[in-house]
């Protein structure tokens, strides 16, 4: 079986599992919404101020939500030791990891699909004319978040206090991604929206570096 096909099967399993209950997705959206509301107390949310702080706020909400949402990705395989079953199946470890990365990417993207319009309404920011460029930034940023987050979810699944450990491992590592994503989002929300190519290239570079590292290290990550 090819890696792509195996990853697609894992992806289908993850999606089926989540859409039976939709617990994770609902909780993630609500959590990010809580963060967005809390930030309205940190500064005066007028249009000018929102333009300055909005992008940072949005991405910090995504990062916090992601670092909580990604936790069950491997942790729930621990309950009935289903990860061993996955490992015994004749598919590569990278296929397991890739399937989970893609599933988390879809969950996170769906959450963002709900959150971005709500955020734009609450903070008086206009999405008109920048939708496609914003989606490009969101896709690149979310990919980096989910690649590293899924790998670290596999790490923290074996630890005590894993819910606390995952953000501790993940958030400092994601600071370059945060800067790049915030800066490229900010240039889209500016008076004259523009796509910042430097930061976009940086985001793509971040994704490539950590996707490659995950591919190289996945056998050690999921080893017995």
């Amino acid at each position, binding site marked *: 079986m090819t890696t792509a096909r195996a990853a697609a099967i894992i992806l289908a399993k993850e999606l089926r599992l989540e859409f039976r209950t939709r617990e994770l997705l609902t909780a993630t959206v609500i959590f990010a919404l809580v963060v967005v509301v809390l930030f309205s107390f940190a500064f005066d949310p007028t249009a000018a101020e929102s333009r300055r702080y909005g992008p940072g706020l949005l991405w910090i909400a995504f990062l916090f939500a992601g670092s909580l949402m990604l936790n069950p990705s491997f942790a729930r395989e621990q309950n009935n030791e289903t990860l061993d079953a996955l490992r015994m199946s004749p598919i590569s470890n990278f296929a397991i990891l890739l399937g989970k990365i893609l599933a988390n990417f879809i969950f996170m993207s769906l959450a963002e699909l709900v959150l971005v319009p709500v955020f734009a309404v609450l903070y008086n920011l206009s999405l008109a004319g920048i939708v496609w460029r914003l989606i490009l930034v969101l896709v690149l940023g979310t990919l980096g978040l989910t690649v590293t987050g899924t790998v*670290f979810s596999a790490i923290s699944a074996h630890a*005590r206090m894993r819910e606390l*450990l995952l953000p501790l491992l993940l958030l400092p*590592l994601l*600071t370059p991604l945060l800067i790049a994503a915030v800066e490229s989002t900010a240039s889209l929300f500016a008076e004259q929206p523009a796509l910042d190519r430097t930061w976009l290239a940086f985001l793509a570079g971040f994704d490539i*570096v950590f996707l490659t*590292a995950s591919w190289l*290290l996945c056998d050690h990550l999921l080893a017995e």
Partner: protein
Amino acid sequence: MKARITITALVALLIFCAGYAALFIAPDEATMHAIQRIFYFHVASWNAMFCAFFVAFYASVAYLVTGKRKWDALGVSGVEVGVMCCTIGLITGPLWARPVWGIWWTWDAKLTSTFILWLLFIAYLLLRGLVEDPEKKASLSAVFAIFASLDIPLVYLANRLWRTQHPQPVIAGGQGSGLDPTMSKVLLLCLFAIFCVMILALMDRYRLELLRNEAAELRYEIESRGLDASDGQETRALQKGAQ
């Protein structure tokens, strides 16, 4: 044992000479005066930190390639000693910055990157403390150390790109370009002395980790043969001590 004591004594002598040279031999700096002398140890601790983290990165890769436990022991030693040097740098930096820049801290690219580096490797040590299974602990922390090391250039690059778009008036008041010849000699001595301290700490920590591994294995042996029925409490106390 005797050799170790001799080496430790030599390094202690070396660090004493370095301290003396930095305080009394190096000439007074024109504008900053005495406070500038912290620079000899500040720069030296960064140098030692980079060496220690490089050892940790190399050992992590070597562990994943070979699977030998000694590389894991070297990896954790490198991180611990690196975090120690990083902490020294992070403390001496603000001590110098307060009188010279007028502020304890600025979110400049170098300072921010170092702070994040420190946080990442503290997270590594936390991770090791929270994973029970020794095999898992070794391989997972090696994977994390490699991810963290890959992240460092990205953190620095991102902060450089970002901060250079903003004015940063404070940083321009830092060290000038040319160093007095005596100053550079003292700096070299301090670089070497702190480097030796780092290597010494690294070697001691490495030995300690190997002993701990050996003790854990022996304890496992005792338990698997059911020999600890009488002094289970003591074994548990030992285990607690080893962690």
